[in-house]
C-alpha cells in the first residue's frame, strides 16, 4: 500500500537538488493486480509550484525522483505531493539543507 515519503533537498552552487522517495506499489495492467499508480506529482518551493508532473504505471515501484531548482537558500521550504489513480495522496515538506 501507499506509505511514507522521504525527501532530501540540498543547496549547492546556485542549485537546489531535491531527491524524493515515495512508497507506492505502482502496479501495472500487466501484473494481474488492480491498476494502482501515482498519476500526479507536484513540487513546490516556498509555496510556489515549480514542477508539475503527470506519470504512468511505467514508473518503478516506490518511485524515486531527483529534480533541480534554480537558486535556493538553506531553510527554503520544499514540498512534494502526489495523487494516485484511486484518489489517494501524500505529501512531505522539508527545509533545504
Amino acid at each position, binding site marked *: 500500500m501507499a506509505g511514507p515519503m522521504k525527501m532530501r533537498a540540498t543547496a549547492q552552487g546556485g542549485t537546489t537538488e531535491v531527491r524524493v522517495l515515495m512508497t507506492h506499489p*505502482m502496479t501495472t495492467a500487466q501484473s494481474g493486480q488492480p491498476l494502482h499508480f501515482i498519476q500526479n506529482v507536484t513540487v513546490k518551493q516556498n509555496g510556489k509550484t515549480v514542477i*508539475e508532473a*503527470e506519470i*504512468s504505471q511505467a514508473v518503478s*515501484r516506490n518511485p524515486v525522483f*531527483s*529534480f533541480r531548482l534554480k537558486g535556493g537558500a538553506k531553510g527554503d521550504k520544499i514540498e512534494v505531493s502526489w495523487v494516485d489513480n484511486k484518489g489517494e495522496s501524500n505529501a512531505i515538506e522539508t527545509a533545504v539543507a
Partner: protein
Amino acid sequence: MTRRSLLAFLGLLLAKPLSVLAAWNEQAFGAKTAPDALKGIGASAAAPSKDIVIEAPQIAENGAVVPIEISSNVPGTTAIAVVIEKNPFPLAGRFEFKEGALPFVKLNVKMGETSDVRVVAFAGGKQFSATREIKVTIGGCGG
C-alpha cells in the same frame, strides 16, 4: 448571446475546475503505440535535437528498475516527456518546469523489453526529441 451558447459557456466554466483537479492526459497515457502517445502530447512533429541529454545504462539487467537521467539544454525548455517506445503504454511521464525549476529529472522506469527511449523537450511552442536505446535482459512490466 443565444441560449445554446450561454449553456456552452456555463458548461465550460463548470468543466474547468474539474480538469484542473484531474490534470492527467488520459488520451496520451492510454495510447498503445509511440506515435499515438506522441500525438497525444502534441509532439508528432518533434525535431531531432542534440541538446537533450539522456543518461541511462546501455544494458538494464532488471527491466523493473531502469534509471534514466534527463536534462534539456534546449533554450526555454518548459516541459520534458518520456516515451518508452515498446512498452504496452509508451508514455511514462510528462514533467512541466515552471519558473524556478531546471529542465532536469531523474527517475526509475519499467521496461518490458529492449526499446528506444524517446525524450521530448517542449520549448517556445516547438518540440524537440532525442532517443537512446536501452537493452533489457529481464522485462519488468509484471510489477
